[in-house]
């Protein structure tokens, strides 16, 4: 029994290539269903025009902008804090307290996104509404605050990993020369680890763009072009979740595949960059 190597290998090979081709299949499927829409009007128009189904306009411009606004804002809020938290884990308190904090961050990855969204509705939204006395509080800012909590564990763990992967010889040598922790960090660790930090930022941004529930639950979902961080906005992901037209052949439904294709391609770009940054480290 189990003396033959060929059959198991073929089974395993089939599973692996099956998964890979399924991933590729999703891309082909999305592209195939997007073609009619992209052909019917200019690609540029689809990506920049507003969404007015009543007038036959199915541009996804507002959603692309909404996705970018929310993701960039959440990254702006999460990145400095994550960076500081990684410094805390690796440099300021590398002992018990740092370890404990790292466990806390790891445990944060287990909190369901829908719970963040749910709490956001009742905690952040009223807070924003009362602070700025404008609108319903369901806005880009609220969503970005909650989203920054969702993406920060990913970034912290990657940052702290890249800080710790700086060769020991370097850090010991610089310590022996009498450098303070800050000097060690700025002169040795940062120059060595910045590519890992870049990877963390890319992956954090990718998570922010790909998240559906936070934006869907607390950014308000209006289809106008967002102009201000207190404006309500709709992301690409929330847009897909909201338009569930029963008519498979309607233009409205088909543009969803353009959204999905955009998200897929954005993901690919992110993965390529993250891999490129990781490789040269």
């Amino acid at each position, binding site marked *: 029994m*189990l003396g*033959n*190597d060929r059959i198991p290998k073929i*089974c*395993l*090979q089939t599973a*692996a290539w099956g*998964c*890979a081709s399924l*991933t590729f299949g*999703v891309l082909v*499927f*999305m592209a195939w*269903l997007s073609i009619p829409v992209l052909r019917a009007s200019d690609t540029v128009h689809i990506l920049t025009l507003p969404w007015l189904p009543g007038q036959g306009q199915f541009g996804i411009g507002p959603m692309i902008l909404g996705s970018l606004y929310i993701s960039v804002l959440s990254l702006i809020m999460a990145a400095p*804090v994550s960076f*500081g*938290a990684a*410094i*805390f884990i690796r440099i*300021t308190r590398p002992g018990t307290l740092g370890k404990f*904090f790292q466990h*806390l961050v790891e*445990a944060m*990855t287990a*909190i*369901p*996104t*829908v*719970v*963040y*969204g*749910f*709490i956001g*509705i*009742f*905690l952040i939204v009223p807070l924003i509404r009362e602070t700025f006395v404008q609108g319903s509080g369901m806005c880009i800012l609220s969503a970005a605050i909650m989203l920054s*909590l969702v993406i*920060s564990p990913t970034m912290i763990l990657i940052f702290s990993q890249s800080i710790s992967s700086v060769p020991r010889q370097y850090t010991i040598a610089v310590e022996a020369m009498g450098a*303070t*922790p*800050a*000097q060690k*960090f*700025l002169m040795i660790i940062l120059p060595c680890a910045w590519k890992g930090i870049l990877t963390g930022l890319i*992956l954090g941004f990718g998570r922010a763009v*790909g*998240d*559906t*529930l936070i934006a869907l*639950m607390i950014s308000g979902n209006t289809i106008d072009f967002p102009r201000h961080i207190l404006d309500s906005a709709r992301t690409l*992901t929330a847009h*897909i*979740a909201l338009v569930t037209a029963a008519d*498979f052949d309607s233009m409205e439904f088909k543009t*969803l*595949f353009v959204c*999905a294709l955009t*998200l897929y391609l954005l993901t*690919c770009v992110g993965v390529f960059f993250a*891999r490129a940054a990781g490789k040269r480290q």
Partner: protein
Amino acid sequence: MKNHSAVDIFLSFYAWCCAFILTSAVLTILGYLLFHGLSSLNLDLIFAHTPVMDALFLKKQVFGGLLPAITGTLALIFLSMLFALPVGIATGIFLSEFARSGTRKILGLMFDIMASLPSIVVGLFGFAVTIFLHQHFFKQLYPCLLISALCLAFLVIPYIIRSTQIALESLPPQVRLTGPALGATRTQNLWYVLIPMAAKEIIGGIILAIGRSAEDTAVIMLTGAVATAGVPNSIFSGYEALPFFIYYTAAEYANTSELMKAYGAALILLFICGGLYLFAYWIKRKVR
């Protein structure tokens, strides 16, 4: 950099601030949820006013309780793992033991993309394929438990692949060589030595994957989760699930008691995911 101490103090002050902000944010969220959710946690939350035994043995349908949503989530986990585990583990083994380096690169890229695809894209894919099949082949097929489980499997497979691959690759070379040196074939070595040695690490990864399939909402809201369905009795029908219940109630609640139920549901989901996380952590810890 003349003033060493000032920079040092600033850096550590900054790090302390960041750690403090994050910790207090998490504690605020958890505290808020516990504060509001704990009071609604009781048997009525789950079983409404149906007698517990009748409900568990499906003698009576539970109306207004969370039992259908909880069973729906458990059914989803079970089914999605049924699909994801064999494929994911097989692929992980293939990548670490059999694939040549070129193949490994291509497949690795595909699985990186697969892992970072937004779940809503996977959900839309599942939904569109279902509608397509419904229109052209199977008239009775609608978005249902089976479709959701398949999509969730797609979502978690890359995590299972990654953890299997890493677990196998991190085995020491001595272990890897002993079996073949005694005349074992590659398959025998894999089956009797390598997989048992890596099992705990693999299981840790699987449990984290279960957590992901329990919490994901974007996929199931497009592929068959509905507001009321009762305890699932067929894989070809709609079903309720905890994350979808939370989302749905947050958007549509009519009164405080419904909202309190959502708090309870959020707390239960948090306990499930937190419990799975701790379990995985415990297993991984035993490995080291």
